[in-house]
Every structure is written in C-alpha cells, then in structure tokens.
C-alpha cells in the first residue's frame, strides 16, 4: 500500500504499524511528485494520504488514485479534509491524526474488501 506523509516521524510511525500488521509499504512519499513517481512504478492495492504536504495539498495524488480506481483513506488532523484538499477528498474515510492503530487497520480492511 502507498503512504504519503510529509513528516518523517509520523510516516515512520504509520509504516511501523502497517508493516507489523503485514502490509507492504510503498513509500512513504513526502511530496506529490514523489508519490506520483511511485505510482508510475507500481500499483498499490490501497493508499493512505496526509492532506497537507508542507506547502502543497495532496489533491493531485488523490485524483491520480481515483483515476486508477485505487481506494484510499486520509490521515488528517483536519475535520474536513475536502476544504484543504478539494472535492476529490469529500466522503473519503479519515483515520485521524494522531492515528490509532485499530482504526487505521479496520479502515484499510474495509477499503480493500469493497
């Protein structure tokens, strides 16, 4: 699965949780460009996105994922990620930040089952 998060410490935390649960992590990527490059190489089954990547929103990555029919969740401290990341994030599950392990894993399971 793809992880996009610009703060290394948070990215590392997510990666540890995910790998301990048996996921193989693609990335983490800190920027839109980095995430799109990863998507060129490999199609993940699901993705987890931070909304605000320093000085750019994650929007372009979310749009690319939508076009590829790859389900994704956001891990955002914002209550309404679509306000910052655009319409493409409306209705997308938000696992929150700080991210709880159970909620994260349950959400990913739901997304990949559907």
């Amino acid at each position, binding site marked *: 699965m793809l992880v996009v998060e610009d703060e*290394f*410490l948070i990215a590392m935390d997510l990666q540890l949780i995910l790998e301990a649960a048996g996921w193989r992590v693609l990335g983490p990527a*800190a920027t839109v460009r*980095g995430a799109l490059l990863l998507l060129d190489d490999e199609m993940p089954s699901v993705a987890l996105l931070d909304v605000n990547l320093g000085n750019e929103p994650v929007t372009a990555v979310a749009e690319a994922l939508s076009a590829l029919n790859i389900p994704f969740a956001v891990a955002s401290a914002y209550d309404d990620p679509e306000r910052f990341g655009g319409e493409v994030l409306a209705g997308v599950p938000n696992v929150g930040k*700080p991210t709880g392990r159970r909620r994260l894993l349950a959400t990913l399971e739901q997304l990949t089952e559907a």
Partner: protein
Amino acid sequence: MNMEDLYRLLRTGHVQLQSIVDTIGDPLLVLDDSLCVQGASRSFFQTFNVGRDETIGRPLYELGDGQWDIPELRRLLLEVVPKATAVIDYEVTHDFPGAGRKTMLVTARTLHHPDRPSHSLLVVFVDVTDRRRREAAKDMLFGELRHRIKNLLAVAQSIARHTATEGRTAEEFRDDFLGRFGALVEAQDLAFSEQGGTGLAELVTRILSPYSSRGEAVVIEPGPDVELGPRTIMALSMVLHELATNAAKYGALSTPAGQVRINWQLEDDNTQLRIEWAESGGPSVTRPSAAGYGTRLIQSTTTYNLGGHVEQKYEAGGLTSVIVIPVGGAIPPN
C-alpha cells in the same frame, strides 16, 4: 387646545421621533406598504453612501440606481414580514456599487395604523460585514491551531513508539523519551513564538542550553542570520537534540575535556544552509555497527523533512556531522 398648540405638539413629536431614529447606530428605514421610503436614519445615509433627497419618498428598490433591488429582501418585506409581523436578524449579502459587498442582518417589523387599513414597515440593517470577516479569520486560525496540536501529538506518539525499549530499563526509556519530547516542546515554542521569526542562532542556543552548563563545552560560532520556517525549526531541533544527546552519552560531552563547536554558512547564492557540528577532546569514536533510532532520526529528518543531506564522520578526535539543507523557499525534492 388651539391649532397652534396642536401644531407645536405634532412638531415636537416629529422632532423627537427623528432624533430617536438618528440616534440609532444601525441604518434604519421606515417604509410604507408599497416599500416607499418614508424616513431614514442618518446612519443609513452614511453606511450606504446615499443622500437624503435621493432617498425619501422613493421606492426602496429604485434607490441608488436600483442597487437595493434585492429579490431576497423584497420577498422578505412584501411577503414574509406582513404575515409574520416581525423578522429578526435575517442575513442578506449583496454587492452595493457604492459601498461594496455587505453582509447585513435585517430586522423588520410591521406597524399597523389604527385609523387606516395600510401599514408601515420599520427596517433595521445591521452591517455585519466586518464581524463576519473577523469570525471567518478566527475560525481559520482555530482550525490551524487544532491541526498543529494534532500533528504535534502525532509526532509525540511516534517518538514514544520508536524510542528504544530493548535491553533498557524503564528509567532509561523515560529519559530518552523526555529528552526528545523536550526538544519538541522547545521547537514548538520557537516555531510559534509571539515575537515572530526565529533565527538559527536562537534555535541552536535553545536546544543546546541543557548541555552548555560547563563554560567551554559547547561553542556556538557566530554565523549569518538565517530565518527559519516552522517546519525547518521543528526538524532541526530534533536533529540537534539527537546530536547533543549522543555527544553527552558517547561523545565529546561525556568527558570534562570534550568540546562541541557549531558553525554555519550560507552557500550557493544563499540557497543552501551548511551546519557543521564538530566534536573534539572526547573519547575516540567509531561508527556504530547498526544505526539506532537516534541516528536514523538525524538522517531521515534531514533528507525526508528538509530535503537535505547529512554526512557523519567518525574520526579519532571525535564525530563530525555536516548538515546541508535548502533554505529560502527552496522546495525539498523527495
């Protein structure tokens, strides 16, 4: 009562009424049942930048070349108010050619005349344009604050999860964690200080102050002014803390004679910041066989968060670390 007394009484009444109307700070209109203006307060003329002569006696929706022809307001005054008797704080936003975009709270009340079938309307406009703007700014600030707090907690959560536990006592774990947590606290304080911008010199001094109790142990050489953004402050604080805590455990700051010298320069047309951390006088050091969390934190925070790189040399005299990061709006590549 003769005619003169009656006239005086009426005139006094009229003057008093007009005074009441003019005393009201918010724009007020008195309209007849066909929405013609019978009276207006001074604040109405001021707020909407219109004159008395072009207002009194004319239909509301013709005022100022039809700028008051607001379908929403017309419907409110012609249909809602007569049925409901009063409407309180109904919000209307409209672009006025003279006064700009205004958000108003409209309060209107019907006045029934006891001896005629007609009625008048009292309409008060409270201009909340500035208030709404301030509220929106405050909401945004509050949202940012929440976002910042949650991010901070997420970083603290990560530090807690990653600080090594294997082969360590609970006290050792706690001290390592609190050391990192302390750096995070200092970084927050610097990044969002009320005084505005934070310079590199201030950051280095703050993060290293717990290690500077012995006179010559930490030498911060004067360098060029470098203003840092919140993200850079946070990442550099963590990196400098790891360097310092490592030096205190294994390096130059673990012995009385040891010293750390820190200096920095701007390079490549002020687009690159080069920070050098040089330890001397301590025990001889060798590269650890496996990178611990601290070392990974130094490396990855610099590359991942700051788009820079770190070079660490373990030499006989002590560890030297060189950190190079882009500054001045350069976007870190991934």
